[in-house]
Protein backbone atom coordinates (compact mmCIF):
# COMPACT_ATOMS: atom_id res chain seq x y z
CA UNK A 1 0.00 0.00 0.00
CA UNK A 2 1.32 3.43 -0.96
CA UNK A 3 -0.86 6.49 -0.49
CA UNK A 4 -0.40 9.39 -2.86
CA UNK A 5 -2.28 12.41 -4.12
CA UNK A 6 -2.83 13.64 -7.66
CA UNK A 7 -3.95 17.23 -8.17
CA UNK A 8 -5.37 18.39 -11.47
CA UNK A 9 -3.87 21.83 -12.10
CA UNK A 10 -6.25 22.30 -15.03
CA UNK A 11 -9.32 21.96 -12.78
CA UNK A 12 -8.01 23.82 -9.72
CA UNK A 13 -9.36 27.37 -9.44
CA UNK A 14 -7.23 28.35 -6.43
CA UNK A 15 -10.20 28.93 -4.13
CA UNK A 16 -8.26 27.88 -1.00
CA UNK A 17 -11.11 25.66 0.25
CA UNK A 18 -8.52 22.91 0.78
CA UNK A 19 -6.51 25.24 3.01
CA UNK A 20 -9.50 26.16 5.14
CA UNK A 21 -10.77 22.57 5.29
CA UNK A 22 -7.37 21.44 6.58
CA UNK A 23 -7.14 24.21 9.14
CA UNK A 24 -10.60 23.34 10.45
CA UNK A 25 -10.14 19.57 10.42
CA UNK A 26 -6.73 19.59 12.08
CA UNK A 27 -7.15 22.56 14.46
CA UNK A 28 -4.26 24.34 12.78
CA UNK A 29 -3.48 27.47 14.85
CA UNK A 30 -4.36 30.86 13.39
CA UNK A 31 -1.58 32.20 11.16
CA UNK A 32 -0.35 28.70 10.27
CA UNK A 33 -1.25 26.29 7.49
CA UNK A 34 -0.39 22.76 6.41
CA UNK A 35 -1.37 23.33 2.78
CA UNK A 36 -1.37 26.42 0.61
CA UNK A 37 -1.99 27.62 -2.95
CA UNK A 38 0.83 28.51 -5.32
CA UNK A 39 0.11 30.47 -8.45
CA UNK A 40 2.69 30.70 -11.22
CA UNK A 41 2.35 32.84 -14.29
CA UNK A 42 4.42 31.81 -17.29
CA UNK A 43 5.10 33.67 -20.53
CA UNK A 44 4.86 37.31 -21.56
CA UNK A 45 1.71 39.28 -22.20
CA UNK A 46 -0.52 38.49 -24.04
CA UNK A 47 0.61 34.82 -24.14
CA UNK A 48 0.19 34.04 -20.46
CA UNK A 49 -0.37 30.74 -18.80
CA UNK A 50 -1.41 30.36 -15.20
CA UNK A 51 -0.83 27.26 -13.15
CA UNK A 52 -2.57 26.85 -9.81
CA UNK A 53 -1.32 24.27 -7.38
CA UNK A 54 -2.54 23.17 -3.99
CA UNK A 55 0.71 22.31 -2.21
CA UNK A 56 1.52 20.42 0.99
CA UNK A 57 3.99 17.89 2.36
CA UNK A 58 5.01 15.59 -0.50
CA UNK A 59 5.21 12.48 1.72
CA UNK A 60 8.52 11.68 0.03
CA UNK A 61 9.72 8.14 -0.35
CA UNK A 62 13.29 9.18 0.56
CA UNK A 63 12.25 11.85 3.04
CA UNK A 64 15.17 14.11 4.11
CA UNK A 65 13.21 15.15 7.22
CA UNK A 66 13.09 11.54 8.39
CA UNK A 67 16.80 11.11 7.70
CA UNK A 68 17.85 14.27 9.57
CA UNK A 69 15.59 13.86 12.63
CA UNK A 70 17.83 13.14 15.65
CA UNK A 71 15.13 11.43 17.74
CA UNK A 72 13.10 9.52 15.16
CA UNK A 73 10.03 11.71 15.76
CA UNK A 74 9.74 12.22 12.00
CA UNK A 75 8.88 8.83 10.64
CA UNK A 76 7.20 7.02 7.77
CA UNK A 77 4.16 5.00 8.80
CA UNK A 78 2.18 2.35 6.93
CA UNK A 79 1.09 3.55 3.53
CA UNK A 80 4.17 5.76 3.13
CA UNK A 81 2.71 8.67 5.09
CA UNK A 82 5.34 10.91 6.75
CA UNK A 83 4.29 12.01 10.23
CA UNK A 84 5.77 13.74 13.28
CA UNK A 85 5.28 12.03 16.63
CA UNK A 86 4.72 15.11 18.82
CA UNK A 87 5.91 13.47 22.03
CA UNK A 88 9.25 12.54 20.46
CA UNK A 89 9.91 15.91 18.81
CA UNK A 90 12.39 18.21 20.58
CA UNK A 91 11.78 21.18 18.26
CA UNK A 92 15.35 21.38 16.95
CA UNK A 93 14.23 22.41 13.47
CA UNK A 94 16.46 19.97 11.57
CA UNK A 95 13.50 18.64 9.58
CA UNK A 96 12.32 22.16 8.69
CA UNK A 97 15.81 22.96 7.40
CA UNK A 98 15.92 19.70 5.45
CA UNK A 99 12.60 20.05 3.61
CA UNK A 100 12.95 21.31 0.01
CA UNK A 101 9.23 22.15 0.01
CA UNK A 102 9.20 24.10 3.27
CA UNK A 103 6.12 22.11 4.20
CA UNK A 104 6.81 22.05 7.95
CA UNK A 105 6.47 24.65 10.67
CA UNK A 106 6.98 24.92 14.40
CA UNK A 107 3.62 24.67 16.17
CA UNK A 108 3.10 27.33 18.87
CA UNK A 109 3.14 24.46 21.38
CA UNK A 110 6.76 23.73 20.39
CA UNK A 111 6.69 20.59 18.30
CA UNK A 112 7.00 20.51 14.52
CA UNK A 113 3.77 20.03 12.60
CA UNK A 114 2.80 19.29 9.02
CA UNK A 115 0.29 17.59 6.70
CA UNK A 116 -0.52 14.02 7.77
CA UNK A 117 -2.68 13.16 4.74
CA UNK A 118 -5.38 13.31 7.48
CA UNK A 119 -4.18 9.93 8.75
CA UNK A 120 -7.02 9.83 11.32
CA UNK A 121 -9.60 10.12 8.52
CA UNK A 122 -7.78 7.75 6.16
CA UNK A 123 -7.78 5.05 8.86
CA UNK A 124 -11.58 5.30 8.91
CA UNK A 125 -11.77 4.94 5.14
CA UNK A 126 -12.45 8.66 4.59
CA UNK A 127 -10.69 11.03 2.21
CA UNK A 128 -8.31 13.71 3.57
CA UNK A 129 -10.20 16.90 4.48
CA UNK A 130 -8.71 18.91 1.59
CA UNK A 131 -9.76 16.28 -0.96
CA UNK A 132 -13.22 15.94 0.52
CA UNK A 133 -13.79 19.71 0.53
CA UNK A 134 -12.51 20.52 -2.98
CA UNK A 135 -15.45 22.07 -4.90
CA UNK A 136 -13.97 21.33 -8.34
CA UNK A 137 -13.05 17.73 -7.42
CA UNK A 138 -9.54 18.33 -8.72
CA UNK A 139 -7.78 16.20 -6.09
CA UNK A 140 -7.47 12.44 -6.11
CA UNK A 141 -6.22 10.52 -3.10
CA UNK A 142 -5.62 6.81 -2.92
CA UNK A 143 -3.36 3.80 -3.14
CA UNK A 144 -0.99 3.86 -6.12
CA UNK A 145 -0.04 0.23 -5.52
CA UNK A 146 -3.60 -0.72 -6.41
CA UNK A 147 -3.81 -0.60 -10.25
CA UNK A 148 -7.59 -0.24 -10.12
CA UNK A 149 -7.72 2.83 -7.85
CA UNK A 150 -8.91 6.15 -9.26
CA UNK A 151 -5.53 7.79 -8.65
CA UNK A 152 -3.70 4.97 -10.47
CA UNK A 153 -6.03 5.49 -13.40
CA UNK A 154 -5.41 9.26 -13.43
CA UNK A 155 -1.63 8.80 -13.27
CA UNK A 156 -1.78 6.27 -16.10
CA UNK A 157 -3.83 8.46 -18.41
CA UNK A 158 -2.68 12.01 -17.66
CA UNK A 159 0.54 13.95 -18.14
CA UNK A 160 2.03 14.76 -14.77
CA UNK A 161 4.92 16.26 -12.81
CA UNK A 162 6.25 16.34 -9.28
CA UNK A 163 7.90 19.27 -7.51
CA UNK A 164 11.71 19.52 -7.38
CA UNK A 165 12.33 15.86 -8.25
CA UNK A 166 15.99 16.88 -8.61
CA UNK A 167 16.12 17.15 -4.81
CA UNK A 168 16.11 13.36 -4.83
CA UNK A 169 13.12 13.03 -2.56
CA UNK A 170 10.81 10.93 -4.75
CA UNK A 171 7.73 13.03 -3.88
CA UNK A 172 4.26 11.49 -3.81
CA UNK A 173 2.11 14.50 -4.67
CA UNK A 174 1.57 14.42 -8.42
CA UNK A 175 0.40 17.42 -10.43
CA UNK A 176 -1.64 16.63 -13.53
CA UNK A 177 -0.75 19.12 -16.23
Amino acid at each position, binding site marked *: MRYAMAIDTLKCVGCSDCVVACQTENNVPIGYCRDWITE*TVDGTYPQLEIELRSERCNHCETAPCVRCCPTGASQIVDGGIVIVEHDE*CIGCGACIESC*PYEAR*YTHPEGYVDKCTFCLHRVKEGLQPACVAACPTKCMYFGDIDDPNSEISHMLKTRKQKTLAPE*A*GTNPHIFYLI
Partner: protein
Amino acid sequence: MKEELIISGRNLPHIDPHLSLWHWPISLYLFLGGLAAGILFFAALVTLFRKEEKYLGAVKYATIIPPIALSVGLLALLYDLTHLWYAWRLYMVIRIESPMSWGAWTLLLVTPISFLWMISYFKEYFPNWKWQQGVWNYASIAIDFINKYKRVMAWILVPSTIILGIYTGILLSAFNARPLWNNSILGPLFLTSGLSTGAAAIIVLSKSHDERRMFSMIDLVLIGIELFLITHMLMGMLAGSQVQLEASELLLGGEFTVAFWVFVIILGLAFPAVLEIFELIGYKVPAVIPALLVLLGGMIFRFIMVDAGQITRYLY
Protein backbone atom coordinates in the same frame (compact mmCIF):
# COMPACT_ATOMS: atom_id res chain seq x y z
CA MET B 1 9.68 32.40 -19.10
CA LYS B 2 8.50 32.27 -15.50
CA GLU B 3 7.11 35.70 -14.79
CA GLU B 4 5.62 35.54 -11.39
CA LEU B 5 5.14 33.21 -8.49
CA ILE B 6 2.56 33.95 -5.84
CA ILE B 7 2.03 31.88 -2.76
CA SER B 8 -1.29 32.81 -1.24
CA GLY B 9 -2.66 32.13 2.19
CA ARG B 10 0.74 31.38 3.70
CA ASN B 11 2.88 33.42 6.05
CA LEU B 12 4.47 30.93 8.41
CA PRO B 13 6.64 32.46 11.14
CA HIS B 14 10.42 31.98 10.51
CA ILE B 15 9.71 30.23 7.17
CA ASP B 16 8.15 32.87 4.89
CA PRO B 17 9.27 34.79 2.91
CA HIS B 18 12.49 32.82 3.34
CA LEU B 19 13.69 30.39 5.96
CA SER B 20 15.17 32.09 9.05
CA LEU B 21 14.57 29.42 11.65
CA TRP B 22 18.11 29.05 12.98
CA HIS B 23 19.56 32.20 14.49
CA TRP B 24 22.58 33.22 16.59
CA PRO B 25 22.36 30.32 19.09
CA ILE B 26 23.18 27.83 16.32
CA SER B 27 25.96 29.97 14.81
CA LEU B 28 27.47 30.61 18.24
CA TYR B 29 27.29 26.94 19.14
CA LEU B 30 28.95 25.87 15.87
CA PHE B 31 31.80 28.30 16.61
CA LEU B 32 32.20 27.32 20.27
CA GLY B 33 31.95 23.60 19.47
CA GLY B 34 34.69 23.91 16.85
CA LEU B 35 36.85 26.03 19.19
CA ALA B 36 36.52 23.54 22.07
CA ALA B 37 37.23 20.64 19.73
CA GLY B 38 40.34 22.42 18.42
CA ILE B 39 41.82 23.19 21.84
CA LEU B 40 41.12 19.72 23.25
CA PHE B 41 42.55 18.07 20.13
CA PHE B 42 45.87 19.90 20.55
CA ALA B 43 45.89 19.34 24.33
CA ALA B 44 45.36 15.61 23.79
CA LEU B 45 48.01 15.45 21.08
CA VAL B 46 50.59 17.26 23.24
CA THR B 47 49.82 14.86 26.09
CA LEU B 48 50.19 11.79 23.89
CA PHE B 49 53.58 13.04 22.63
CA ARG B 50 54.59 13.68 26.30
CA LYS B 51 55.39 17.34 25.59
CA GLU B 52 53.24 18.80 28.39
CA GLU B 53 56.13 20.73 29.94
CA LYS B 54 57.02 22.40 26.65
CA TYR B 55 53.45 23.24 25.58
CA LEU B 56 51.90 24.19 28.89
CA GLY B 57 49.57 26.72 27.27
CA ALA B 58 47.88 23.99 25.22
CA VAL B 59 47.37 21.47 28.01
CA LYS B 60 46.92 23.70 31.05
CA TYR B 61 45.82 27.26 30.26
CA ALA B 62 43.78 27.00 27.03
CA THR B 63 41.89 23.96 28.34
CA ILE B 64 40.00 26.28 30.70
CA ILE B 65 38.06 27.38 27.60
CA PRO B 66 36.47 24.09 26.34
CA PRO B 67 34.25 23.33 29.37
CA ILE B 68 33.03 26.94 29.39
CA ALA B 69 32.61 27.07 25.59
CA LEU B 70 30.77 23.74 25.49
CA SER B 71 28.50 24.75 28.39
CA VAL B 72 27.61 28.08 26.78
CA GLY B 73 27.17 26.33 23.41
CA LEU B 74 24.90 23.69 24.91
CA LEU B 75 22.83 26.34 26.70
CA ALA B 76 22.49 28.17 23.37
CA LEU B 77 21.33 24.91 21.75
CA LEU B 78 18.81 24.23 24.50
CA TYR B 79 17.57 27.82 24.23
CA ASP B 80 16.96 27.16 20.54
CA LEU B 81 14.84 24.02 21.12
CA THR B 82 11.16 24.84 20.94
CA HIS B 83 10.03 21.59 22.59
CA LEU B 84 12.66 21.74 25.31
CA TRP B 85 11.12 19.37 27.86
CA TYR B 86 11.39 16.52 25.39
CA ALA B 87 15.16 17.08 24.88
CA TRP B 88 15.88 13.80 26.71
CA ARG B 89 14.49 12.06 23.63
CA LEU B 90 17.88 12.75 22.00
CA TYR B 91 19.41 10.15 24.30
CA MET B 92 16.77 7.50 23.81
CA VAL B 93 18.04 6.54 20.37
CA ILE B 94 21.17 6.52 18.21
CA ARG B 95 20.28 7.55 14.68
CA ILE B 96 23.24 6.81 12.42
CA GLU B 97 21.71 8.78 9.52
CA SER B 98 21.19 11.98 11.52
CA PRO B 99 24.28 14.17 12.10
CA MET B 100 22.49 15.90 14.97
CA SER B 101 22.17 12.55 16.76
CA TRP B 102 25.91 11.96 16.27
CA GLY B 103 26.62 15.41 17.67
CA ALA B 104 24.40 14.92 20.71
CA TRP B 105 26.17 11.68 21.64
CA THR B 106 29.64 13.09 20.92
CA LEU B 107 28.91 16.06 23.18
CA LEU B 108 27.81 13.67 25.90
CA LEU B 109 31.30 12.15 25.70
CA VAL B 110 33.46 15.25 25.16
CA THR B 111 31.81 17.69 27.61
CA PRO B 112 32.45 15.64 30.80
CA ILE B 113 36.03 14.91 29.69
CA SER B 114 36.60 18.63 29.08
CA PHE B 115 35.51 19.30 32.68
CA LEU B 116 37.68 16.49 34.07
CA TRP B 117 40.65 17.85 32.11
CA MET B 118 40.19 21.33 33.61
CA ILE B 119 39.69 19.90 37.12
CA SER B 120 42.89 17.86 36.81
CA TYR B 121 44.84 21.18 36.86
CA PHE B 122 42.98 22.73 39.81
CA LYS B 123 45.86 22.04 42.18
CA GLU B 124 48.20 23.86 39.82
CA TYR B 125 45.79 26.73 39.19
CA PHE B 126 45.40 27.27 42.96
CA PRO B 127 48.67 26.03 44.52
CA ASN B 128 48.14 28.00 47.76
CA TRP B 129 44.70 26.53 48.47
CA LYS B 130 44.36 24.40 51.65
CA TRP B 131 44.40 21.10 49.72
CA GLN B 132 45.43 19.12 52.82
CA GLN B 133 42.60 20.27 55.06
CA GLY B 134 39.27 18.49 55.71
CA VAL B 135 37.02 18.06 52.72
CA TRP B 136 39.62 19.53 50.34
CA ASN B 137 41.77 16.52 51.03
CA TYR B 138 39.19 14.33 49.29
CA ALA B 139 39.11 16.77 46.38
CA SER B 140 42.86 16.49 46.19
CA ILE B 141 42.65 12.69 46.08
CA ALA B 142 40.04 12.89 43.33
CA ILE B 143 42.24 15.24 41.29
CA ASP B 144 45.19 12.87 41.65
CA PHE B 145 42.92 10.04 40.50
CA ILE B 146 41.86 12.01 37.39
CA ASN B 147 45.50 12.78 36.61
CA LYS B 148 46.31 9.07 36.54
CA TYR B 149 43.93 8.63 33.61
CA LYS B 150 45.11 11.66 31.64
CA ARG B 151 46.48 9.61 28.76
CA VAL B 152 43.30 7.54 28.55
CA MET B 153 41.33 10.80 28.27
CA ALA B 154 43.76 12.01 25.60
CA TRP B 155 43.30 8.80 23.60
CA ILE B 156 39.51 9.25 23.74
CA LEU B 157 39.74 12.95 22.92
CA VAL B 158 41.74 12.65 19.68
CA PRO B 159 39.04 10.82 17.68
CA SER B 160 36.07 12.35 19.52
CA THR B 161 37.20 15.97 19.03
CA ILE B 162 37.71 15.29 15.33
CA ILE B 163 34.17 13.92 15.16
CA LEU B 164 32.91 16.97 17.11
CA GLY B 165 34.76 19.41 14.84
CA ILE B 166 33.71 17.79 11.59
CA TYR B 167 30.13 17.26 12.74
CA THR B 168 29.57 21.01 13.13
CA GLY B 169 29.99 21.19 9.35
CA ILE B 170 28.26 17.94 8.45
CA LEU B 171 25.25 19.05 10.50
CA LEU B 172 24.71 21.73 7.85
CA SER B 173 25.96 19.84 4.79
CA ALA B 174 23.48 17.00 5.36
CA PHE B 175 20.57 19.28 4.44
CA ASN B 176 20.25 18.79 0.70
CA ALA B 177 17.39 21.30 0.65
CA ARG B 178 19.92 24.11 1.37
CA PRO B 179 22.27 24.21 -1.65
CA LEU B 180 24.85 26.50 0.03
CA TRP B 181 25.38 23.97 2.84
CA ASN B 182 24.93 20.84 0.78
CA ASN B 183 28.56 20.26 -0.22
CA SER B 184 30.93 17.67 1.18
CA ILE B 185 33.70 20.25 1.73
CA LEU B 186 31.80 21.93 4.58
CA GLY B 187 32.61 19.22 7.16
CA PRO B 188 36.41 19.28 6.63
CA LEU B 189 36.24 23.09 6.27
CA PHE B 190 34.54 23.59 9.66
CA LEU B 191 36.95 21.07 11.22
CA THR B 192 39.95 22.99 9.88
CA SER B 193 38.45 26.29 10.99
CA GLY B 194 37.79 24.81 14.45
CA LEU B 195 41.38 23.55 14.75
CA SER B 196 42.64 26.93 13.56
CA THR B 197 40.60 28.83 16.17
CA GLY B 198 41.79 26.31 18.78
CA ALA B 199 45.43 27.00 17.87
CA ALA B 200 44.68 30.74 18.01
CA ALA B 201 43.20 30.43 21.50
CA ILE B 202 46.32 28.54 22.63
CA ILE B 203 48.50 31.36 21.22
CA VAL B 204 46.47 33.95 23.16
CA LEU B 205 46.78 32.08 26.48
CA SER B 206 50.32 30.72 26.11
CA LYS B 207 53.11 32.20 28.22
CA SER B 208 56.05 30.74 26.34
CA HIS B 209 57.59 32.24 23.23
CA ASP B 210 58.47 28.81 21.78
CA GLU B 211 54.92 27.57 22.17
CA ARG B 212 53.44 30.68 20.55
CA ARG B 213 55.85 30.22 17.64
CA MET B 214 54.95 26.54 17.28
CA PHE B 215 51.21 27.19 17.29
CA SER B 216 51.61 30.17 14.95
CA MET B 217 53.21 27.76 12.51
CA ILE B 218 50.40 25.22 12.99
CA ASP B 219 47.81 27.98 12.58
CA LEU B 220 49.49 29.18 9.41
CA VAL B 221 49.28 25.71 7.86
CA LEU B 222 45.62 25.42 8.93
CA ILE B 223 44.79 28.83 7.42
CA GLY B 224 46.37 27.65 4.18
CA ILE B 225 44.23 24.50 4.18
CA GLU B 226 41.15 26.56 5.01
CA LEU B 227 41.69 28.95 2.09
CA PHE B 228 42.24 25.95 -0.16
CA LEU B 229 38.99 24.33 1.04
CA ILE B 230 36.99 27.55 0.65
CA THR B 231 38.30 27.92 -2.90
CA HIS B 232 37.28 24.37 -3.66
CA MET B 233 33.86 24.84 -2.11
CA LEU B 234 33.19 27.87 -4.32
CA MET B 235 34.66 26.14 -7.38
CA GLY B 236 32.41 23.16 -6.79
CA MET B 237 29.37 25.41 -6.57
CA LEU B 238 30.29 27.37 -9.68
CA ALA B 239 30.55 24.08 -11.56
CA GLY B 240 27.24 22.91 -10.11
CA SER B 241 23.56 23.11 -10.95
CA GLN B 242 21.40 26.23 -10.97
CA VAL B 243 20.56 26.04 -7.25
CA GLN B 244 24.26 25.86 -6.37
CA LEU B 245 25.09 28.72 -8.71
CA GLU B 246 22.47 30.82 -6.97
CA ALA B 247 23.86 29.76 -3.59
CA SER B 248 27.43 30.78 -4.49
CA GLU B 249 26.05 34.08 -5.79
CA LEU B 250 25.28 35.06 -2.17
CA LEU B 251 29.04 35.05 -1.43
CA LEU B 252 30.19 36.21 -4.87
CA GLY B 253 28.32 39.44 -5.48
CA GLY B 254 25.17 38.99 -3.46
CA GLU B 255 23.98 39.88 0.02
CA PHE B 256 26.82 38.35 2.05
CA THR B 257 29.73 39.24 -0.24
CA VAL B 258 31.20 42.12 1.80
CA ALA B 259 30.84 40.36 5.14
CA PHE B 260 32.38 37.18 3.75
CA TRP B 261 35.34 38.69 1.89
CA VAL B 262 36.19 41.50 4.32
CA PHE B 263 35.65 39.79 7.68
CA VAL B 264 36.27 36.12 6.89
CA ILE B 265 38.73 35.94 4.00
CA ILE B 266 40.78 39.14 4.48
CA LEU B 267 40.61 39.99 8.21
CA GLY B 268 39.99 36.44 9.43
CA LEU B 269 42.40 34.46 7.26
CA ALA B 270 44.69 36.36 4.84
CA PHE B 271 45.77 39.23 7.11
CA PRO B 272 46.52 37.04 10.17
CA ALA B 273 48.43 34.67 7.88
CA VAL B 274 50.60 37.57 6.66
CA LEU B 275 51.19 38.73 10.25
CA GLU B 276 52.15 35.20 11.30
CA ILE B 277 54.60 34.92 8.40
CA PHE B 278 56.18 38.26 9.42
CA GLU B 279 56.45 36.99 12.98
CA LEU B 280 58.05 33.71 11.92
CA ILE B 281 60.70 35.41 9.79
CA GLY B 282 61.69 37.57 12.73
CA TYR B 283 59.66 40.80 12.74
CA LYS B 284 58.17 41.84 16.07
CA VAL B 285 54.42 41.25 15.83
CA PRO B 286 52.35 40.68 18.98
CA ALA B 287 51.18 37.07 18.40
CA VAL B 288 47.87 37.90 20.07
CA ILE B 289 46.70 40.15 17.20
CA PRO B 290 46.56 37.51 14.40
CA ALA B 291 45.17 35.00 16.91
CA LEU B 292 42.29 37.26 17.92
CA LEU B 293 41.57 38.02 14.24
CA VAL B 294 41.42 34.28 13.48
CA LEU B 295 38.98 33.74 16.37
CA LEU B 296 36.76 36.62 15.27
CA GLY B 297 36.88 35.52 11.61
CA GLY B 298 35.96 31.95 12.60
CA MET B 299 32.92 33.17 14.49
CA ILE B 300 31.73 35.50 11.71
CA PHE B 301 32.17 32.64 9.21
CA ARG B 302 29.70 30.49 11.16
CA PHE B 303 27.18 33.33 11.38
CA ILE B 304 27.41 34.00 7.62
CA MET B 305 27.08 30.33 6.66
CA VAL B 306 24.06 29.74 8.94
CA ASP B 307 22.23 32.89 7.79
CA ALA B 308 23.09 32.66 4.08
CA GLY B 309 22.45 28.92 3.82
CA GLN B 310 18.86 29.25 4.95
CA ILE B 311 18.07 31.67 2.13
CA THR B 312 19.15 29.16 -0.51
CA ARG B 313 16.54 26.67 -1.68
CA TYR B 314 15.20 24.66 -4.58
CA LEU B 315 13.11 26.63 -7.00
CA TYR B 316 10.12 25.14 -8.70
